[in-house]
């Protein structure tokens, strides 16, 4: 017997082995419980908007279907479409109607178009407004005013759960 043969490990190449998946199942069970806790049961899922810090409230009402508007410190968006820019809590002059300082023209036009395309949703008149908590009432008022002029008077203020 040569010295090399004496230390070789006997390998069985066709051998099958059972994988121990108990620990993996444990991990998945914990993950599943966590995800079930955070599972949203509301009919509408709202995505957080970049640059918008929502205020906290004790409200217990789940979001409902409606037009999604968001106002951050720098921009006003309809869903994901940029409608107007803000600078130091005031809308750019181009987007404000010269005869009415509360009227945001691009927002009104967009809502009018939406009215024609989605009659069913537009009939509800619901607006889900995600606005930054630091914005002054003057900015929120302009959005509310224009939305109500365009036939969306039911304003729903989106907040995060708190308190």
């Amino acid at each position, binding site marked *: 017997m040569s010295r090399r043969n004496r230390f070789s490990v006997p390998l069985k190449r066709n051998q099958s082995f*059972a994988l121990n*998946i*108990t620990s*993996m*199942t444990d991990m*998945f*069970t914990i*993950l*599943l419980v966590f*995800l*079930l806790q*955070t*599972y*949203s049961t*509301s009919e509408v*899922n*709202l995505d*957080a908007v970049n640059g918008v810090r*929502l*205020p*906290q*409230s*004790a*409200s*217990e*009402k*789940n*979001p*409902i279907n409606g037009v999604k508007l968001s106002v951050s410190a720098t921009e006003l968006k309809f869903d994901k479409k940029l409608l107007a820019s803000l600078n130091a809590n005031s809308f750019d002059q181009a987007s404000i109607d010269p005869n009415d*300082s*509360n009227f945001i023209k691009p927002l009104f036009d967009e809502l009018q178009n939406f009215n024609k395309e989605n009659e069913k949703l537009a009939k509800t*008149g619901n607006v*889900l407004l995600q*606005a*930054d*908590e*630091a*914005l*002054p*009432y*003057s900015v*929120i*008022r302009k959005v*509310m*005013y224009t939305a*109500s002029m365009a036939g969306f*008077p*039911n*304003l*729903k*203020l*989106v*907040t*995060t*759960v708190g*308190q």
Partner: protein
Amino acid sequence: MKRRFKLNINHNSEFELDLAPLLAVMVKLVPVLLVSSAFVQMMIIETDLPQVVQEAIQKQENNPKSAQIAVEVNKTEGVKIVVSENGQEKIEVIGFDSNKKIDYATLHAKFVEVKKAHPEIFKIDLNPDAEIPYKDLVKIMDEARKVRVSDVRFPVKDPKTGQDTSTDYMFPEVVFSNMLDG
């Protein structure tokens, strides 16, 4: 011959549970839940604009005796609760605390007081100044919506059955009444 058919049961034997199907279900379920999970839970506050509450306004117009509650917010005085009834106005002012923030505890207590005096009213007119932060408005609406003390409830008549019942809601309907002002 009889011994040939006797079953040999070993009560101390161990067996391994087949976890593979369970794991397969979980592997499918986890991505589904990951996609539909809301990690930031969002809620909504309903605020009626003047067009929507026309009916309520009409009701109040038909009943001139019913009280009107207005909440004015400004940066110099704080929150002013104005209760108008029978042509008379009663004003309560809630100022700022030592940190120059609205004294929300006192504000809530005042709302409870007003609600106790007028349990039939569920709507308030909110008139904030232009520079009031949105965060403060949401907080004021929170203070007005529901009573926090569990043993305080307000009487209300069920319009369908006509029976007297009670509620912990104070002023859930908020109308931005100065929204259409120039």
